[in-house]
């Protein structure tokens, strides 16, 4: 195991140095007309309102109530997106080739980008910090059952775990199992049960 001895530390001004560099870059890029004073707000707004896990939740909820749609979602995620009332650009940045892996009683799927942070932005938005952390990237590939247990997902030994390396070529995400006791729920109520974690495979959906 690595030692905890604190002999090496980044400087205390680490954050301030990055903040100062970013401030300089922002001011230069605005001055040269490459971005505008509104760019930061408009990009962040895009992820708050247009691209986020609310889209993935709608797709999964529809797949739970409509078997034909589920087949389409599994066969061609991007075509399924086109059937939804989603904003334009769903097949744009980071969403060109999305695929979804279906959880069943026998198989549990989990996604990781071992090389960096590829993630299906259009259906799940921006990934959490832990997804981009070296610890997750390294460990879920070697010991997925232990990692899932750290997230609170305890799987029977008989359940096969499939780890999907989501990449620049294919951006994977997970179709969770519909929980029992949701038979009378509407599509919107079902969508409200879904979390990004469930659609990454590090949580089960609960009622």
């Amino acid at each position, binding site marked *: 195991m690595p030692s905890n001895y604190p002999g090496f530390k980044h400087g205390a001004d680490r954050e301030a140095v990055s903040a100062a560099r970013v401030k300089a*870059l922002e001011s230069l890029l605005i001055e040269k007309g490459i971005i505008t004073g509104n760019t930061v707000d408009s990009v962040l707004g895009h992820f708050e309102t247009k691209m986020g896990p609310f889209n993935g939740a709608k797709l999964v909820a529809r797949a739970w109530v409509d078997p034909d749609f589920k087949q389409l979602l599994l066969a061609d995620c991007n075509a399924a997106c086109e059937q939804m009332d989603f904003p334009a650009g769903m097949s744009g940045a980071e969403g060109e080739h999305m695929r979804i892996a279906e959880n069943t009683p026998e198989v549990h799927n989990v996604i990781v980008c071992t090389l960096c942070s590829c993630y299906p932005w259009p259906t799940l938005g921006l990934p*959490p910090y832990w997804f981009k952390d070296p610890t997750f990237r390294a460990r879920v590939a070697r010991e997925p059952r232990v990692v899932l247990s750290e997230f609170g997902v305890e799987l029977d030994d008989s359940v096969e775990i499939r780890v999907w390396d989501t990449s620049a070529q294919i951006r994977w995400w997970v179709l969770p199992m519909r929980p029992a006791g949701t038979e009378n729920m509407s599509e919107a109520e079902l969508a409200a049960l879904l979390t990004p974690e469930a659609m990454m495979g590090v949580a089960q959906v609960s009622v």
Partner: protein
Amino acid sequence: MNGPHDMGGMHNMGPIPIEADEPVFHSEWEAKVFAMSFATFGNYFPVDETRHASERMPPAQYLSASYYERWLYALELLITEHQLVTQAEIEERMAQLAQDR
């Protein structure tokens, strides 16, 4: 390329830092570096070049940098290589902003 970014299966990484109620960005500069990257890739260079740029960090720096420190490195590398901004302009602007403070 078998670089430091190829982390799948690496040993001795320790516990995963899972945060409760995590914000989308931990600081304003992280949000800004993401937004500036998003606004430039696609228009001035392809998104894949951004990832490759972070993989071009010297290995020891790559491993000790935070996620958005790598993005910042990649953004600077690409905007200078694609001649949108020069390194001298960046250093000059930083000095100027530090003085104005």
